[in-house]
């Protein structure tokens, strides 16, 4: 009996100690993983409807008021990007930075990333599928309130695609 009580008490203390240890470091209010997961789950459903083929991408890009957003690294963007695409590196997404590039929260935004194109390993290097930039870009834009985002779906060959490119490495 005694042993049981003692061990229960010990377990209780251990639990409390654990609780204290966990509570020591207040979580960083600006880093919210749970919130991100929830957002990502919402986005997954929406994104399924927003992935578009090459022809539709080209058609939408030509509409007035539509923004094509390239979220890759600046130097890669400068080498090659979809003609007319605006640049804002994913790493620089903030409320203000996005507002400068995208006119309104309901502006139609088209996104693409490295994984959409084959044939240029220097400037459009493949990332492992779950790490594709589009996923994070789409999710981020959604959390910032951009509700009208479309994503280029297919994987196209840079050399044969109908989508026009421009940049330092493009002749």
């Amino acid at each position, binding site marked *: 009996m005694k042993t049981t009580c003692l061990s229960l008490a010990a377990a209780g203390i251990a639990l409390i100690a654990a609780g204290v240890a966990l509570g020591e470091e207040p979580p960083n209010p*600006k880093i919210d993983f749970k919130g991100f997961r929830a957002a990502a789950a919402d986005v997954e459903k929406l994104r399924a409807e927003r*992935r578009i083929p090459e022809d539709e991408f080209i058609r939408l890009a030509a509409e007035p008021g539509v923004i094509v957003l390239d979220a890759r*690294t600046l130097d890669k963007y400068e080498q090659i990007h979809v003609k007319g695409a605006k640049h804002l*590196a994913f790493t620089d997404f903030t409320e203000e930075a996005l507002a400068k590039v995208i006119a309104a929260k309901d502006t139609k935004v088209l996104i693409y990333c490295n994984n959409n194109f084959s044939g240029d390993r220097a400037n459009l*290097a493949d990332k*492992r599928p779950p790490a594709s*930039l589009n996923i994070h870009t789409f999710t981020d834009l959604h959390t910032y309130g951009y509700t009208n985002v479309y994503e280029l779906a297919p*994987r196209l060959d840079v050399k044969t695609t109908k989508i026009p490119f421009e940049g330092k490495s493009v002749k």
Partner: protein
Amino acid sequence: MKAILALPFAVMVLGLASGQEAANPNVRFGEFADQTAEVQKLRAERLVSEDEFLKLAAEPGTVILDARSKDKYELLHVKGATHLAYTDFTAEALAKVIPDKGTRVLIYCNNNFKDAAQAFPTKTKVALNIPTFITLHSYGYTNIHELQPLLEVKTAKLSFEGTSVDPGPLIEQPGKHRWPTDTKDPQLSFVNVVRADDGTISPQLPGKPGEFLAAAGAPAFESLSVRKNPSGNSWMVSGKIVSTNAGGPVQQVKIYTGGDSRLVQLLAMSDHKGEILFALSPMRSADGKESLPEYLYLDKHSHLSVSGPPQPAETPGWDFGRYKLIYK
């Protein structure tokens, strides 16, 4: 024949069943959601306090990875951090900066610091640490730790470096001179410098106004420091330029990067205090060989230039102070 051709296609379609990603096998969301769930559990045990971060950073083999954009990294980053922009994460790029899948990797981002809006602008929605952690995990890195707290750069125990950081203690010339100064105005130092034949600066004792020997009437470098830019093939030179009594108590310092101006990119200048910071890149000779400039010249018009071997003896009317650059 048909069956054989159909098989790989069928396998591919089955593999993609988890998402509606048939059009692009390289972008897979279902897998992403699974990884995110996995990471959430793991990450909870990998959040570290500032003290723990410092302790782990000091252990050999640890890599501190800064995944922000390059320009932010160059402005300010945790001392010792390696840079690879999140947008450049690929298997090869990561392998170059992280030697091993089991290497201990420490990450931090904008949202760990609240008082440095230019280098660390807060992302009000998704902090960069989150996709960074998830993506590193998806590439098979098993030993990632994330700085948890929200700190102030000003008060943090962490050390920082970058172009926005005060360059810190200045040059060590051979002999480690401490320039004698004689100043009535605390914001200006008066120092006489003697230009030695081999180009090093050695001070002359104050009290002999007019005996300024570098460039008549011109300002001079009181001190000069050269250190390698951690993120590129250039060198950061910081210096303090002072008025000389030969030119009057207050001399306006205007830096014109002349000569091979592409070698000298002025980054910052606090005119009144005479402090300047500029970048030097290696010079390339006709046969493609790279070399670093050996000497810095500051002439009487505050015309800053660099060169390899010392310039020939000055021609009348063109006088300059010559400073030997010491690279460590």
